[in-house]
């Protein structure tokens, strides 16, 4: 790297750091987080809002058991979607469409519930497994569209995945305003409330615990896939270089199809966890951008499945704090989104600082 800036005071040079330890890496990430909160504090202070009090509210979320449980609950869809993204990003498949895949997962699970409730299909005990299956399949299928476009026609996936987010959200709008509207819902755009046996808490009682269990199981599955299976190896080779993958005799197209399907499927289950774990019915805007938050989480966790679980809870906490901020300080809910974005930017800058170091040379001193 040879970025050099000549100044009056000397030459500022940026060098690639040759290897760094894990401890260094973690401390740089923490530093970036601290920096992010500093920026947020500046924004709040400049608008006459008390940053100290705001941070007390935000970090208070992790101290109070009820709010912590809420944070864990909020973290489930984020975590599952982020795990899916880890697969996609390892494959160098820029899936920005987790949000849409989450919505499709919600549609699928609601669909199963309605089939059962309206038409009496399936036994009660079958509904939950079928919801899992359906949300995985539909979420996967939604991601398979850009996957197939990329594999078959070479269409870059970034914009199609983005567009399909808007389409998925509109499908939900259509359904809850139309055919799936609760007849006893006074005309509000809501589905019927889910029966108890279709809710996440049927496994461990509290939805947060059940969800956490699924997050950890998901992390284990993704870890195992990437480290110990042939498909995982192929996904990583394709991600590093499709040309080398082809050379190695790997079927690049099928790998992309399978990988994108799995990625979308996990996000789909994330959708299930929203309707059956957090809200208990389908409504418009059911996800306040979990799928986008998942991108930040995946990046911050460095695509490591285990770290993803922990980071998701942190971001679940931020979303929970958004509500708390509004109630206690009248700070609009959008603040949570803003804080997330600032963290995201700072984490990225942190990545740069991790990899490079800045050297300032005084004039006359020779280059090392």
């Amino acid at each position, binding site marked *: 790297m040879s970025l050099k800036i000549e100044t009056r005071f000397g030459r500022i040079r940026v060098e690639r750091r040759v290897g760094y330890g894990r401890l260094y890496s973690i401390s740089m990430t923490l530093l970036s987080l601290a920096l992010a909160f500093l920026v947020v504090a500046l924004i709040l202070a400049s608008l006459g809002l008390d940053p100290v009090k705001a941070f007390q509210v935000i970090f208070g979320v992790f101290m109070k058991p009820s709010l912590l449980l809420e944070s864990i609950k909020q973290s489930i869809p984020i975590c599952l979607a982020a795990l899916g993204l880890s697969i996609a990003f390892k494959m160098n498949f820029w899936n920005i469409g987790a949000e849409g895949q989450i919505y499709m997962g919600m549609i699928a699970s609601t669909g199963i519930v309605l089939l059962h409730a309206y038409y009496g299909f399936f036994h009660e005990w079958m509904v939950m497994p079928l919801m899992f299956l359906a949300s995985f399949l539909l979420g996967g299928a939604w991601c398979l569209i850009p996957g197939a476009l990329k594999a078959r026609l070479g269409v870059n996936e970034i914009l199609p995945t983005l567009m399909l987010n808007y389409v998925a959200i509109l499908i939900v709008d259509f359904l809850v305003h139309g055919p799936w509207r609760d007849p006893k819902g006074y005309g509000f755009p809501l589905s019927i409330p889910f029966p108890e046996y279709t809710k996440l808490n049927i496994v461990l009682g509290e939805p947060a615990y059940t969800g956490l269990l699924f997050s950890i199981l998901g992390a284990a599955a993704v870890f195992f896939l990437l480290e110990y299976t042939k498909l995982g190896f192929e996904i990583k080779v394709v991600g590093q270089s499709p040309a080398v993958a082809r*050379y190695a*005799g790997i079927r690049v197209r099928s790998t992309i199809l399978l990988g994108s399907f799995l990625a979308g499927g996990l996000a789909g289950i994330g959708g299930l966890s929203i309707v059956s774990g957090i809200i208990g019915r389908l409504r418009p805007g059911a996800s306040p951008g979990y799928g986008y938050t998942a991108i930040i989480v995946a990046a911050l966790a460095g695509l490591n499945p285990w770290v993803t679980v922990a980071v998701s809870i942190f971001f679940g906490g931020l979303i929970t704090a958004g509500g708390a901020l509004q109630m206690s300080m009248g700070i609009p809910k959008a603040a949570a989104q803003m804080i997330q974005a600032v963290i995201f930017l700072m984490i990225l800058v942190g990545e740069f600082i991790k990899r490079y170091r800045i050297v300032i040379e005084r004039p006359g001193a020779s280059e090392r």
Partner: protein
Amino acid sequence: MEKLVELRGIVKRFPGVVANDRVDFELRRGEVHALLGENGAGKTTLMNILYGLYKPDEGEIYVRGKRVELRSPRDAISLGIGMVHQNFRLVESHTVLENIILGLREDGLRIDFEKHRRRIIELSERYGWKIDPMARIWQLSAGEKQQVELLKILYRGAEILILDEPTSVLTVQETRRLFEALRRMAREGKGIIFITHKLNEVMEVSDRVTVMRRGRVVITKETRETTKAELANYMIGRPIVFGQKKASAQLGAVVLKVIDLKVLGDRGYPAVNGVSLEVRRGEILGIAGVSGNGQVELAEAIAGLRKPLAGRILLNGVDATGMDAGKMIELGVAYIPPEGNKLGIVPGFRVVDNLFLKAYRYPPYSNKLLLNWGKMLEKARELIEEFGIVTPSALSRASSLSGGNIQRLILARELSGIIGGIPRLIVAAYPTKGLDIGATEFVHDLLLRYKEMGSGIIFISEDLEELLLLSDRIAVMSGGRIRGVLAREEADAEKIGLLMSEAVVQAG
């Protein structure tokens, strides 16, 4: 005679190496000065310093007698220094004219296309070139692209011309034309630095020659006062033995038969246009020719990386036409790709991952679903030992290996037989390009060993010496066709050159 350039005591260090160690060099007005040395001798580094791309750690640069400090190519350009890099720096989708005037600070904001067009035609005619200024670069041949590079420099009125390995992409004819143009430029009073590792070219075109070895200047001499043998001695530090590595040629059954093969290139035109050839067990078939004449596309078609447009590929009598790379691997085809550090490995992966880039999916290294890392690591350690790959461990990243070791890693993967026995057919595309002498010999010996073990080998190279050294037969390729096949006994550089240039005439 006036000194155009003088470099004094140049030192340039990179992490772990001293690329230039107290180098002195001078260029006079009106001379072609050859800078001779092996790969990695420090020639290109020295010239990048003169072109302002690198800053020397120590030493002084004088241009026309005045001490200068070069902070960027822009400084060099304004001093009348121009450089043609080994890999062309041209914008492929732009026109010749746009490339030539790029970065030129002349007249206003608006580009006066007509004025430049006229001036470019004038200038190129002076050197006997026929170049359409409005043609797009990707439509040009390698020789024409080089002319554009030179025009770019001359258009800025450069007097000091640096050419880095300019003939590596040229046919014999194009090389001759280039040399004529260079002589003419020298007569006009320009100074030309000609970087090369080819002795013939030094003798043919240069007035003086400076030999570099391991970052140091060995000697500077008038060309007519020296000989090829003496230069070779300076260059390598010991006399070269121009002998043949005779290996018993016991030819067996036909391994590969290619019939009238046509393959599309990246540009959408047939890069291989009706090639037929045959390789037997225990035979090395050399493929000679200037690179970019369909050799890589031919190799990729045989390796299953490109679907043939027409024709057939038979492996051991089995029709393998249109099979994908995975199938070809299973049929026993090993492929050593050109530029192994880009296409042959995943730099971010560990050595063990790279060694098993192909074999991971076959037992005993995996079952239907799962990988067996234990088995792979065990075998990887064996291979590292056997092929002498210098690496801290099997778990180190491949990106930390040197070029020679990356090539050893690729050879270990392709040849060691971890995918079901020794390969039946080895396709080696430029396997020694960029390697030092030691690594090159390792590759040569390995190929000969596999020849003796009964593999059929296709050996693609630009280096005639190397081809004559190893091949049983040599096929000369140009314009996507085989122009002739010579047995080793009857082959020599002149005949091969003739076949190459005849083809150019035919091609138009």
